[in-house]
């Protein structure tokens, strides 16, 4: 009853190392066959533990892990048909690139000629033919990563698990290898599960982004959903690109409610995803940093903007295609506007200027 499907279902998966605290705490998740899934969260949130449980390097304390319709808890990695790419690649230092890649076939008892032939095919796939006889220590970080990928892929897994695969690389190479991972995933047509703590990496690669905190899934969805429509303050702040404000609901009228802020006038927020808001509730809202427009006091607000908060410019960072303007709009939280470069330099602000921060009312998002 072996299935080639690499769809994964986690049902009530828990893991505790000391029997007291759950590092992974009741995780339920479905990952489609052939999907690129990224687990993201701060260190210690349990993302790597989940990966290792799917890989078979750790047994869950409770729950089921189903791959291709079969509960794999207790099975060895080879029986699960999963393969793992380790964080620092864990290439065998005494074996050449070719022998590293052929290792899985060697332990299966394939003859030397057969396994080296198969390895050469794989080496070609990751474009390392001219380095086949080198030792891992003689390769660059990017080349080592490709060896690790090839070594895992030669086992013909239905799920490939990658533990922070890009963290050992420098910035430029990271972007390049990111594309290569995506290309390999499409070429192999198998499920990739990738653990990272870099938001950009997750949203650039993944079909399914899973945001975790303290052993629990905070939000799982398409990259754009998670980035543009975070469920709560944690996800909004963790994924970045959002300003989070909190306040008390002042009045609710029809499709909108008004949020009273300690230090500023009312903020009007549409009632889309949060129907049950009543006066007096403490509510968080998110406003994308690139949705915030800055207007000099006394000037007319752009159309659709009903809220404007007086702020002082704290700092300005030039970022190339946009300018990051940090403001003191709200007392406790950071408030940042990403102003397009051309807009900014048409009428540049300096630190200490007073501006009105405003946004189209419809772009404010109430959080859970």
């Amino acid at each position, binding site marked *: 009853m072996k299935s080639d499907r690499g769809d994964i279902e986690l049902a009530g998966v828990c893991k505790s190392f000391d029997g007291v605290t759950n590092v992974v705490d009741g995780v339920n998740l479905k990952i489609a066959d052939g999907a690129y899934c990224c687990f993201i969260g701060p260190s210690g949130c349990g993302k790597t533990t989940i990966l290792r449980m799917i890989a078979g390097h750790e047994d869950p304390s409770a729950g089921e892990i189903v791959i291709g319709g079969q509960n794999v808890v207790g099975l060895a990695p080879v029986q699960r048909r999963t393969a793992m790419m380790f964080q*620092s690649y*864990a290439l065998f230092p005494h074996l050449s690139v070719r022998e590293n890649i052929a290792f899985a076939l060697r*332990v299966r008892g394939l003859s030397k000629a057969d396994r080296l032939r198969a390895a050469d095919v794989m080496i070609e796939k990751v474009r390392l033919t001219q380095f086949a006889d080198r030792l891992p220590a003689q390769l660059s970080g990017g080349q080592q990563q490709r060896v690790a990928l090839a070594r895992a892929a030669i086992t013909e897994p239905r799920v490939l698990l990658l533990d922070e695969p890009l963290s050992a690389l420098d910035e430029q190479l990271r972007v390049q290898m990111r594309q290569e991972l995506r290309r390999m995933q499409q070429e192999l047509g198998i499920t990739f599960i990738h653990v990272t703590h870099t938001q950009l990496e997750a949203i650039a690669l993944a079909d399914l982004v899973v945001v975790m905190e303290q052993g629990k899934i905070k939000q799982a969805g398409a990259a754009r959903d998670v980035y543009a429509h975070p469920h709560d303050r944690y996800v909004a702040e963790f994924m970045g690109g959002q300003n989070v404000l909190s306040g008390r609901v002042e009045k609710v009228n029809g499709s909108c409610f008004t949020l009273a802020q300690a230090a500023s006038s009312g903020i009007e927020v549409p009632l889309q995803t949060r129907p049950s808001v009543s006066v007096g509730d403490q509510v968080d809202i998110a406003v994308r940093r690139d949705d915030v427009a800055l207007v000099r006091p006394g000037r007319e607000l752009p159309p659709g903007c009903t809220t404007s908060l007086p702020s002082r410019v704290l700092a300005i960072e030039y970022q190339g295609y946009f300018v990051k303007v940090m403001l003191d709009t709200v007392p406790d939280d950071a408030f940042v506007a990403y102003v397009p470069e051309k807009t900014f330099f048409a009428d540049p602000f300096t630190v200490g200027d007073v501006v009105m921060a405003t946004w189209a009312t419809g772009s404010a998002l109430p959080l859970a």
Partner: protein
Amino acid sequence: MSAVLADMPKTEATKTVAPATTKAIAPSRGERPRTFYVLATLFALYVLALYGPMFCIYILSFQDIRGGLVFPMKGTSLHWFVDLFTQVRTGDVKGSFDRSIKLAVIVTVITVVVSFLAGLGFRKRFRGDTVVFYMMIGSLVAPGLVLGLGTGLLFQALGLNASWYTSALGAQLSWTLPFGVLVMFAVMSRFNHVWEEAAYDLGASRWQSIRLVIIPVLAPGLVAVALFGFTLSYDEFARSLQTAGSLNTLPLEIWSMTLNVTSPSLYALGTVTTIVSFIVIGASLGSIVLIQNKRGSSTKG
């Protein structure tokens, strides 16, 4: 012209580096700090003190038949080396040499195997690991002569005959095993346990992962452990003195010769044993280099 060219980069470099930094970098060429010469002299004296006495023995062993036990040298020949292996009155050199080598080989094999297993065992913490560790250190620091004496007495009390391959072997292991295990710990500290996990992930059994990953990666370290085991056993004296029984090992034989042999044969024996030691050390280091070179180019074929 060439001198000028050679000087060019130097002046260039000194110009760009701040004066304070120049002094720290200086040892590259010329103008070394005064402390360098002080320390170099100290080191030279140390080497002289270390090897000087031994060189006296090596030199005096090459005298001719008129040779005595003290300087000055009387002629040069290999007479005393021949004497060493032909004369019965100098003692059972050949037999004791034989026993010492055999014993050293047995000790080496046991030390390597046990140290390797201990290295594997200590990868993870286990109940009583600290006790085991300190007991090991205890056997390392126990006075050798007393330990040897005790072993000899114990054998007597048990009605067993002390001999080089039973009681002496045990007494020597009490010394080489802790050493080997300590070296193994140092070697293991550089072993990345993710390699094992990777092997398991790729379908290797326990045994395959030991044979194909752990042993090859640790091979140079295992050679070092073997070298330790061999040399410690080969010149071990204190622990063997009361445990070797009726047949001497080489160090014991040399010791008894110092009491009754009054010819440069004794020195010739010193020269020969030193050569054997150096051959063993050279072979070990050579094999480590060979392993590492092989890793660089073995996979071409």
